[in-house]
């Protein structure tokens, strides 16, 4: 063996535990299976999407889940020209933070657009669901741009 050659051996990392998703994240994921999006109300009336069991600032327990719209606006975005092997998407796409109507915090997901020139902050997008949903963040295939009709 050459002295500068690195020894290598296969290593498969496993996580042999099952986790329960609990009353809030579990409800959100079940909502996705039913093709609806749930948020959770904070004490000040604002709505967290995706929801958490506690208020990230005050640590108060949160319980009141509310449905929000399936459309909203892009808060910020970047373009992925070459998706990574594990990525759910195999063609170029945008990654974005999307604030759904009725929500006060943005959700992280993909925007399925032709190219980066289509993207802009404030653009309207709506959910494109996968045909078969199973209660997973990937039930959302991505967000697609749409024009709001004025009529």
């Amino acid at each position, binding site marked *: 063996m050459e002295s500068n050659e690195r020894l290598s051996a296969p290593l498969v990392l496993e996580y042999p535990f099952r986790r329960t998703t609990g009353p809030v994240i579990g409800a959100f994921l079940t909502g996705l299976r039913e093709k609806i999006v749930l948020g959770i109300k904070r004490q000040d009336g604002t709505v967290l999407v995706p929801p958490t069991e506690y208020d990230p600032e005050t640590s108060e327990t949160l319980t009141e889940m509310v449905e929000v719209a399936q459309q909203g606006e892009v808060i*910020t975005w*970047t373009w992925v020209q070459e998706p990574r092997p594990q990525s759910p998407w195999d063609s170029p796409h945008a990654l974005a933070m999307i604030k759904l109507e009725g929500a006060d915090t943005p959700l992280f997901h993909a925007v399925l657009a032709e190219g980066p020139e289509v993207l802009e902050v404030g653009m309207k997008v709506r959910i494109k669901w996968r045909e078969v949903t199973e209660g997973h963040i990937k039930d959302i295939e991505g967000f697609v741009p749409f024009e709001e009709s004025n009529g």
Partner: protein
Amino acid sequence: MCGEKVKQMRKVAVVAAASRQEEKMLDTEVEMMIPLITEVRTRTGLDQTDIGFTCSGSSDFLAGQAFSFVMTLDAVGPVPPIAESHVEMDGAWALYETWVKFQMGVIDTALVYSYGKPSPGSLQDVLSTQLDPYYVAPLWPDAHSVAALQARLLLEQGIITPDELADCALRTGTVESREDYFLQPLLADPLREADCPTYADGGVALILASEEKADELCERPAWITGIDHRIDAHHFGVRDLTAAPSARLAAKNAGAHDGPIDSTELHAAYTTHDLLLRKEMGLDIPKIPQRSYPIQADTLMASGLLRIAEAARSIWDGSANRTLAHATAGPLLQQNLVCVLDGGGD
């Protein structure tokens, strides 16, 4: 811990440091750490049996093995038995734990080290696993894309400008000229390659000592006059990404504003982070440049502790009297630690 209170606390100084970073290291973690740990012990004349406490920082996710730090203890020599601890965090947090141990009054000397060797695997995969496990990690975004989302918010809201990014890239040495910066293609729109870190393998070892011991071990000890660490929400959707409140608070509590700072060592792996941290912590562009920049060589788990080592080196060589070191962990500056060091001169 507020600055005023720290002054009433036990004085602790950084008295020796050794570090090494390379893009790809063929040595194992133990082989990498032995010369560094030997160097700081030799420089201070301390034997492992003289050292009251040993604390390290590293990541099992990089090593691909549970309790991987136990093996690296072979670089220290754990026999006869030593008092030892570990954090699954950057070594800057191991230093914080050690500083608390000093305050408990039970030790006079300590060895703190940390290391990361990402080159054998995919660091981008490891960084994905630190994101929210239900909402974000299953989508496997790479770190540069996540940084780009924050960068666009900062640019759109006018908190930073493209010219400032170019100046920062020039200052941190990732481009030769401003023109070169703007000629670079976008790596993760709106970030260019010059805005993003180059990753490296590496490690760093430090010796800390109490006021009873420090002057014996070092000509000009770098006294820790303030240290604090704070955290923001994990899920980055609920945070205002154009701010870093935990960095602001940690700097205030560490007494950063109690006197002039001669040089700063920021754990900023992106130009956007350098600019945002300076705004949040009220720091000017320093007259004395950083000794090394994480954007040029970022070592997960060691970059933060390395900043403290570099801030101490500026005091030891007399180029600065009061320095600030910063460490960060988690996605998009989620957790921040600030350590202010003082040479005790005028």
